[in-house]
Protein backbone atom coordinates (compact mmCIF):
# COMPACT_ATOMS: atom_id res chain seq x y z
CA UNK A 1 0.00 0.00 0.00
CA UNK A 2 1.44 3.38 -0.99
CA UNK A 3 0.95 6.73 0.77
CA UNK A 4 -2.04 7.72 -1.38
CA UNK A 5 -3.80 4.43 -0.64
CA UNK A 6 -3.36 5.06 3.07
CA UNK A 7 -4.74 8.56 2.69
CA UNK A 8 -7.77 7.26 0.82
CA UNK A 9 -8.30 4.56 3.45
CA UNK A 10 -8.25 6.98 6.37
CA UNK A 11 -9.82 10.04 4.73
CA UNK A 12 -13.45 9.22 5.72
CA UNK A 13 -12.37 8.59 9.31
CA UNK A 14 -10.34 11.80 9.46
CA UNK A 15 -13.33 13.74 8.12
CA UNK A 16 -15.62 12.06 10.66
CA UNK A 17 -13.24 13.24 13.38
CA UNK A 18 -13.54 16.76 11.97
CA UNK A 19 -17.31 16.35 11.89
CA UNK A 20 -17.42 15.53 15.60
CA UNK A 21 -15.02 18.41 16.26
CA UNK A 22 -17.23 20.83 14.30
CA UNK A 23 -20.27 19.67 16.23
CA UNK A 24 -18.38 20.02 19.52
CA UNK A 25 -17.32 23.60 18.70
CA UNK A 26 -20.86 24.51 17.61
CA UNK A 27 -22.24 23.06 20.85
CA UNK A 28 -19.85 25.27 22.85
CA UNK A 29 -20.52 28.52 21.00
CA UNK A 30 -24.12 28.29 19.82
CA UNK A 31 -27.39 27.82 21.68
CA UNK A 32 -29.25 26.58 18.61
CA UNK A 33 -30.91 23.16 18.51
CA UNK A 34 -28.48 20.26 18.51
CA UNK A 35 -30.33 18.44 15.71
CA UNK A 36 -29.83 21.34 13.30
CA UNK A 37 -26.16 21.55 14.29
CA UNK A 38 -25.73 17.82 13.64
CA UNK A 39 -27.33 18.02 10.20
CA UNK A 40 -25.75 21.29 9.07
CA UNK A 41 -22.23 20.37 10.18
CA UNK A 42 -22.62 17.07 8.29
CA UNK A 43 -23.75 18.89 5.15
CA UNK A 44 -20.92 21.40 5.50
CA UNK A 45 -18.26 18.68 5.70
CA UNK A 46 -19.84 16.67 2.92
CA UNK A 47 -19.69 19.74 0.71
CA UNK A 48 -16.09 20.37 1.71
CA UNK A 49 -15.27 16.81 0.87
CA UNK A 50 -16.92 17.02 -2.55
CA UNK A 51 -14.99 20.24 -3.30
CA UNK A 52 -11.72 18.54 -2.31
CA UNK A 53 -12.52 15.53 -4.48
CA UNK A 54 -13.29 17.76 -7.47
CA UNK A 55 -10.05 19.70 -6.92
CA UNK A 56 -7.91 16.55 -6.70
CA UNK A 57 -10.00 14.49 -9.09
CA UNK A 58 -6.97 13.16 -10.99
CA UNK A 59 -5.58 11.42 -7.90
CA UNK A 60 -8.65 9.27 -7.26
CA UNK A 61 -10.49 6.64 -9.25
CA UNK A 62 -14.29 6.22 -9.12
CA UNK A 63 -14.19 3.42 -6.58
CA UNK A 64 -12.05 5.49 -4.20
CA UNK A 65 -14.39 8.47 -4.53
CA UNK A 66 -17.36 6.21 -3.81
CA UNK A 67 -15.54 4.68 -0.84
CA UNK A 68 -14.67 8.10 0.62
CA UNK A 69 -18.26 9.38 0.37
CA UNK A 70 -19.99 6.15 1.44
CA UNK A 71 -17.72 5.51 4.44
CA UNK A 72 -18.00 9.14 5.54
CA UNK A 73 -21.81 9.03 5.38
CA UNK A 74 -21.91 5.75 7.36
CA UNK A 75 -19.50 7.11 9.97
CA UNK A 76 -21.58 10.26 10.36
CA UNK A 77 -24.74 8.18 10.74
CA UNK A 78 -23.05 6.24 13.55
CA UNK A 79 -21.94 9.49 15.20
CA UNK A 80 -25.43 11.04 14.92
CA UNK A 81 -26.88 7.99 16.65
CA UNK A 82 -24.24 8.20 19.35
CA UNK A 83 -25.42 11.74 20.09
CA UNK A 84 -29.13 10.85 19.84
CA UNK A 85 -29.07 7.80 22.12
CA UNK A 86 -28.41 9.52 25.48
CA UNK A 87 -31.04 12.15 24.65
CA UNK A 88 -33.91 10.07 23.36
CA UNK A 89 -33.40 6.37 24.06
CA UNK A 90 -35.94 4.95 26.46
CA UNK A 91 -33.66 2.01 27.21
CA UNK A 92 -30.86 4.34 28.35
CA UNK A 93 -33.35 6.37 30.40
CA UNK A 94 -34.43 3.21 32.21
CA UNK A 95 -30.78 2.32 32.84
CA UNK A 96 -30.25 5.79 34.30
CA UNK A 97 -33.32 5.36 36.49
CA UNK A 98 -32.04 2.03 37.87
CA UNK A 99 -28.60 3.58 38.36
CA UNK A 100 -30.06 6.46 40.41
CA UNK A 101 -32.43 4.26 42.43
CA UNK A 102 -30.55 1.08 43.27
CA UNK A 103 -32.85 -1.81 44.09
CA UNK A 104 -35.90 -0.19 42.54
CA UNK A 105 -38.84 -2.53 41.90
CA UNK A 106 -40.23 -3.11 38.42
CA UNK A 107 -43.70 -2.00 39.55
CA UNK A 108 -42.25 1.29 40.78
CA UNK A 109 -40.59 1.91 37.42
CA UNK A 110 -43.88 1.23 35.67
CA UNK A 111 -45.71 3.63 37.98
CA UNK A 112 -42.97 6.31 37.76
CA UNK A 113 -42.49 5.95 34.04
CA UNK A 114 -46.03 5.66 32.75
CA UNK A 115 -47.21 6.71 29.28
CA UNK A 116 -48.13 10.12 30.70
CA UNK A 117 -44.52 10.85 31.65
CA UNK A 118 -43.11 9.39 28.43
CA UNK A 119 -45.45 11.65 26.46
CA UNK A 120 -44.53 14.77 28.44
CA UNK A 121 -40.79 14.08 28.13
CA UNK A 122 -40.99 13.46 24.38
CA UNK A 123 -43.07 16.55 23.83
CA UNK A 124 -40.57 18.62 25.82
CA UNK A 125 -37.73 17.25 23.68
CA UNK A 126 -39.70 18.00 20.50
CA UNK A 127 -40.47 21.56 21.59
CA UNK A 128 -36.85 22.17 22.59
CA UNK A 129 -35.38 20.85 19.34
CA UNK A 130 -37.95 22.74 17.28
CA UNK A 131 -39.72 19.72 15.81
CA UNK A 132 -43.09 20.92 17.10
CA UNK A 133 -44.44 24.31 18.10
CA UNK A 134 -46.61 24.67 21.15
CA UNK A 135 -49.09 27.51 21.36
CA UNK A 136 -51.35 27.32 24.40
CA UNK A 137 -52.69 23.79 24.12
CA UNK A 138 -52.32 23.53 20.35
CA UNK A 139 -49.40 21.50 19.03
CA UNK A 140 -48.22 21.97 15.47
CA UNK A 141 -45.61 20.07 13.50
CA UNK A 142 -42.88 22.60 12.76
CA UNK A 143 -39.96 20.77 11.15
CA UNK A 144 -40.03 19.50 7.60
CA UNK A 145 -36.80 17.57 8.16
CA UNK A 146 -38.57 15.17 10.49
CA UNK A 147 -41.04 14.25 7.73
CA UNK A 148 -38.20 12.70 5.70
CA UNK A 149 -37.35 10.46 8.67
CA UNK A 150 -41.04 9.74 9.22
CA UNK A 151 -41.67 8.64 5.63
CA UNK A 152 -38.48 6.55 5.62
CA UNK A 153 -39.31 4.81 8.90
CA UNK A 154 -42.90 4.15 7.81
CA UNK A 155 -41.67 2.57 4.58
CA UNK A 156 -39.10 0.33 6.30
CA UNK A 157 -41.62 -0.60 9.01
CA UNK A 158 -44.09 -1.60 6.28
CA UNK A 159 -41.37 -3.79 4.71
CA UNK A 160 -40.94 -5.50 8.09
CA UNK A 161 -44.68 -5.79 8.60
CA UNK A 162 -44.47 -3.67 11.75
CA UNK A 163 -47.48 -1.46 12.38
CA UNK A 164 -47.22 1.94 13.95
Amino acid sequence: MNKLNFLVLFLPFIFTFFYSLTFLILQQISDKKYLSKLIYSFLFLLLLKIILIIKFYNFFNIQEIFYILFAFTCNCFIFMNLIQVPISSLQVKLLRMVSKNKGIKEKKINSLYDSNRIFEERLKTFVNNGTVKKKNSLIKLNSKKILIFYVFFKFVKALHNVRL
Partner: protein
Amino acid sequence: MEQIINLIIYCFIYIFIHLGLYRLLNINVNKIFTVIFIFLISLFLGIKTSSNEIVLNLINFNLFVICFYILMPGIINNGPALLIIDILMKENKKSTKEKIKHLFKIKTTSTVVKNRLKINIDRGLIFRKNSQLFLSKKGKIIINFFNIIIKIFKLKIYE
Protein backbone atom coordinates in the same frame (compact mmCIF):
# COMPACT_ATOMS: atom_id res chain seq x y z
CA MET B 1 -17.18 0.55 -11.31
CA GLU B 2 -17.45 -3.22 -10.97
CA GLN B 3 -16.51 -3.03 -7.29
CA ILE B 4 -19.19 -0.41 -6.61
CA ILE B 5 -21.83 -2.63 -8.22
CA ASN B 6 -20.52 -5.55 -6.17
CA LEU B 7 -20.90 -3.56 -2.95
CA ILE B 8 -24.46 -2.54 -3.85
CA ILE B 9 -25.30 -6.18 -4.60
CA TYR B 10 -23.81 -7.34 -1.25
CA CYS B 11 -25.82 -4.73 0.61
CA PHE B 12 -29.04 -5.76 -1.12
CA ILE B 13 -28.36 -9.46 -0.48
CA TYR B 14 -27.82 -8.64 3.21
CA ILE B 15 -31.09 -6.68 3.35
CA PHE B 16 -33.03 -9.42 1.55
CA ILE B 17 -31.63 -12.18 3.78
CA HIS B 18 -32.57 -10.12 6.83
CA LEU B 19 -36.05 -9.30 5.48
CA GLY B 20 -36.72 -12.87 4.39
CA LEU B 21 -35.72 -14.38 7.72
CA TYR B 22 -37.56 -11.71 9.67
CA ARG B 23 -40.83 -11.89 7.76
CA LEU B 24 -40.97 -15.60 7.02
CA LEU B 25 -39.34 -17.18 10.07
CA ASN B 26 -39.51 -14.29 12.56
CA ILE B 27 -35.74 -14.51 13.09
CA ASN B 28 -33.79 -11.32 13.60
CA VAL B 29 -30.25 -11.88 12.31
CA ASN B 30 -29.37 -8.31 13.01
CA LYS B 31 -27.40 -9.01 16.16
CA ILE B 32 -23.98 -8.04 17.48
CA PHE B 33 -22.84 -11.60 16.80
CA THR B 34 -23.60 -11.12 13.06
CA VAL B 35 -21.67 -7.83 13.00
CA ILE B 36 -18.62 -9.44 14.65
CA PHE B 37 -18.88 -12.52 12.42
CA ILE B 38 -18.94 -10.41 9.23
CA PHE B 39 -16.06 -8.31 10.56
CA LEU B 40 -13.93 -11.40 11.22
CA ILE B 41 -14.65 -12.85 7.77
CA SER B 42 -13.82 -9.47 6.20
CA LEU B 43 -10.59 -9.26 8.17
CA PHE B 44 -9.60 -12.71 6.97
CA LEU B 45 -10.48 -11.88 3.34
CA GLY B 46 -8.71 -8.51 3.54
CA ILE B 47 -5.49 -10.06 4.81
CA LYS B 48 -5.67 -13.01 2.43
CA THR B 49 -6.29 -11.03 -0.76
CA SER B 50 -4.34 -7.84 0.14
CA SER B 51 -6.08 -6.05 -2.72
CA ASN B 52 -6.81 -2.34 -2.21
CA GLU B 53 -10.13 -2.49 -4.04
CA ILE B 54 -11.39 -5.42 -1.97
CA VAL B 55 -10.24 -3.81 1.30
CA LEU B 56 -12.14 -0.60 0.49
CA ASN B 57 -15.24 -2.60 -0.39
CA LEU B 58 -15.01 -4.68 2.78
CA ILE B 59 -14.72 -1.56 4.95
CA ASN B 60 -17.77 -0.08 3.24
CA PHE B 61 -19.76 -3.29 3.65
CA ASN B 62 -18.85 -3.55 7.34
CA LEU B 63 -19.87 0.06 7.92
CA PHE B 64 -23.16 -0.65 6.16
CA VAL B 65 -23.75 -3.67 8.43
CA ILE B 66 -23.06 -1.55 11.54
CA CYS B 67 -25.45 1.19 10.33
CA PHE B 68 -28.11 -1.43 9.66
CA TYR B 69 -27.56 -2.88 13.13
CA ILE B 70 -28.07 0.58 14.67
CA LEU B 71 -31.15 1.30 12.55
CA MET B 72 -33.07 -1.93 13.16
CA PRO B 73 -34.21 -1.51 16.82
CA GLY B 74 -35.97 1.70 15.79
CA ILE B 75 -37.78 -0.18 13.03
CA ILE B 76 -38.86 -3.22 15.02
CA ASN B 77 -39.87 -1.32 18.18
CA ASN B 78 -42.31 1.54 18.01
CA GLY B 79 -40.63 4.44 19.80
CA PRO B 80 -42.73 7.11 21.51
CA ALA B 81 -41.25 9.90 19.36
CA LEU B 82 -42.38 8.24 16.13
CA LEU B 83 -45.83 7.58 17.62
CA ILE B 84 -46.30 11.28 18.43
CA ILE B 85 -45.22 12.28 14.91
CA ASP B 86 -47.55 9.64 13.46
CA ILE B 87 -50.49 10.95 15.50
CA LEU B 88 -49.71 14.52 14.42
CA MET B 89 -49.50 13.47 10.77
CA LYS B 90 -52.86 11.73 10.99
CA GLU B 91 -54.33 14.87 12.57
CA ASN B 92 -53.18 17.09 9.68
CA LYS B 93 -49.99 18.21 11.43
CA LYS B 94 -51.75 19.98 14.28
CA SER B 95 -53.91 19.04 17.21
CA THR B 96 -54.52 19.78 20.86
CA LYS B 97 -52.18 18.38 23.47
CA GLU B 98 -55.01 16.53 25.23
CA LYS B 99 -56.10 14.77 22.06
CA ILE B 100 -52.56 13.71 21.15
CA LYS B 101 -51.96 12.50 24.69
CA HIS B 102 -55.20 10.50 24.63
CA LEU B 103 -54.32 8.84 21.29
CA PHE B 104 -50.75 8.26 22.49
CA LYS B 105 -52.00 6.45 25.61
CA ILE B 106 -54.24 4.19 23.53
CA LYS B 107 -51.33 3.27 21.26
CA THR B 108 -48.60 2.74 23.82
CA THR B 109 -50.57 1.06 26.66
CA SER B 110 -48.10 -0.11 29.28
CA THR B 111 -45.96 -2.37 27.11
CA VAL B 112 -43.39 0.22 26.03
CA VAL B 113 -41.53 0.41 29.34
CA LYS B 114 -41.96 -3.32 30.02
CA ASN B 115 -40.47 -4.22 26.63
CA ARG B 116 -37.47 -1.92 27.05
CA LEU B 117 -36.88 -3.20 30.55
CA LYS B 118 -37.01 -6.78 29.27
CA ILE B 119 -34.44 -5.96 26.57
CA ASN B 120 -32.15 -4.42 29.21
CA ILE B 121 -32.48 -7.53 31.42
CA ASP B 122 -31.99 -9.93 28.48
CA ARG B 123 -28.83 -8.09 27.42
CA GLY B 124 -27.44 -8.31 30.95
CA LEU B 125 -27.45 -4.56 31.55
CA ILE B 126 -29.82 -4.90 34.50
CA PHE B 127 -30.19 -7.87 36.85
CA ARG B 128 -32.95 -8.92 39.22
CA LYS B 129 -32.31 -9.79 42.88
CA ASN B 130 -35.30 -10.48 45.15
CA SER B 131 -37.61 -8.68 42.69
CA GLN B 132 -35.37 -5.60 42.92
CA LEU B 133 -33.48 -4.21 39.93
CA PHE B 134 -29.77 -3.42 39.91
CA LEU B 135 -27.39 -2.17 37.27
CA SER B 136 -24.80 -4.72 36.12
CA LYS B 137 -21.15 -3.88 35.39
CA LYS B 138 -21.96 -3.76 31.68
CA GLY B 139 -24.84 -1.36 32.40
CA LYS B 140 -22.59 0.87 34.51
CA ILE B 141 -20.03 1.05 31.69
CA ILE B 142 -22.76 2.09 29.23
CA ILE B 143 -24.16 4.74 31.58
CA ASN B 144 -20.67 6.13 32.27
CA PHE B 145 -19.90 6.17 28.56
CA PHE B 146 -23.06 8.14 27.75
CA ASN B 147 -22.46 10.48 30.68
CA ILE B 148 -19.06 11.31 29.17
CA ILE B 149 -20.71 11.95 25.77
CA ILE B 150 -23.29 14.22 27.45
CA LYS B 151 -20.56 16.19 29.26
CA ILE B 152 -18.23 16.55 26.27
CA PHE B 153 -20.94 17.63 23.84
CA LYS B 154 -22.94 19.61 26.41
CA LEU B 155 -26.13 17.77 25.57
CA LYS B 156 -29.40 18.59 27.31
CA ILE B 157 -31.49 15.73 28.59
CA TYR B 158 -35.13 16.38 29.29
CA GLU B 159 -36.13 14.24 32.25
